[in-house]
């Protein structure tokens, strides 16, 4: 499975329990939801989409299928915003 990594051109910080992410090329600020913030902390270049789904379903009361859909949607949204690199 492809591993997922945060893009290099980002600045980010956890404030009030959620992550705010800046694209340094445009200075556009993104605000992540609580669940997205949970996943963001686990994007480290080692975890794949599948790994993230397992972590999510292990932490929250969601079925593996729902976790897979949620993570897939999360990754697509972040890829569209150019916040991720797929290795």
């Amino acid at each position, binding site marked *: 499975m492809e591993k997922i990594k945060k893009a290099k051109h980002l600045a*980010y910080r956890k*404030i009030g329990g959620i992550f705010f992410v800046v694209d340094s090329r445009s200075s556009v600020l993104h605000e992540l*939801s609580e669940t*997205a913030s949970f996943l963001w902390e686990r994007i480290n270049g080692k975890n794949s989409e599948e790994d993230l789904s397992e972590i999510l379903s292990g932490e929250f009361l969601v079925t593996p299928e729902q976790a897979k859909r949620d993570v897939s949607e999360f990754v697509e949204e972040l890829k569209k915003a150019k916040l991720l690199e797929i290795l």
Partner: protein
Amino acid sequence: MPPSKGPNPSTNIFNVSYCAKTPLSGTVELTKNCNLSCVHCYIVSKKNNRRELSTAQVKKLLRQLADEGTLYLVLTGGEVFLRPDIIEICSYARKLNFDLRIFTNATLISGKQIQQLASLNISAVEISLYGREKTHDRITGLPGSFNKCLSAAKELLRHGVPVALKTPLMRGNVKDYSFLSKLAAQIGASLKVDPTITPAEDGSKNILKHRADDKMLEKIYPKNKRSPQIGYDTSDLLCSAGHNFFAVNSKGDILPCLQLPLVLGNIKNQSFKSVWRDSAVLNNLRGLKSDSVKICSNCPDAPYCQRCPGLALTEDGDMFGPSSIACRLVRIMTGRHSS
């Protein structure tokens, strides 16, 4: 699962950090030393300053800031490229995931440093450029500084580093405003101008003579073009310094802002966290309400005003009183008769 939670992340991050007293944004002054002698500079002693923060002390500070929630970081001087460790500090700041901006006169940046900055993905290099060659070199006191500065700006842009040109609007350069505007557009930089000159850090007001007069500024800021601040509240008269904004000067003093010279503590012998959370001066500042600024809170121009408490203190002697430069600027920018 959309990445964005609210309609306006900028408003949300400001409100969350302001309420939680998170030091979201800050300026770290790395040195007061400078190779230029700009006529309007507020720094009094620009040569041979010692007791400045070491590389290790700056790195320790950056770690503490990251832990406390700082996202937006500005490194300023003096001239930061006089420090041989500037790239090391920038690199460390980016490893800690700060949104990083550097303020510089851009006369000392080498080609290698430009390449290194490009690889660090910093948000911007903000360069002081005052006007045409003759104007710029007269203000900086260094012949050739315009060409060095412009050359570095172009090289940074060529390497993909965002650049902002910036200048105070003064008697000596206000006529060059349209030149700067065209130059910035031509090379692909943004332009920031500010009509404010601040008193020198020793309290001297001699440099205020460089401020542009009303007629000069009226050409730049046409009357009645200024809109009231959206969502204005009279608490805006007190600004965010000490709430979610801070500064650390080159000696390690922690301040609410470089323009508000209230020393809260020093990072050489205290943790940033302990000062930020426990400073009596800071907690007093945070407890102030809009009615602390008695005259201004009743002023009809207040929603248009960009009063700086630091300037009210350093220029007019009372951080809770009117700021004479803010009164003047609001009158120019609104065309209204300021009370």
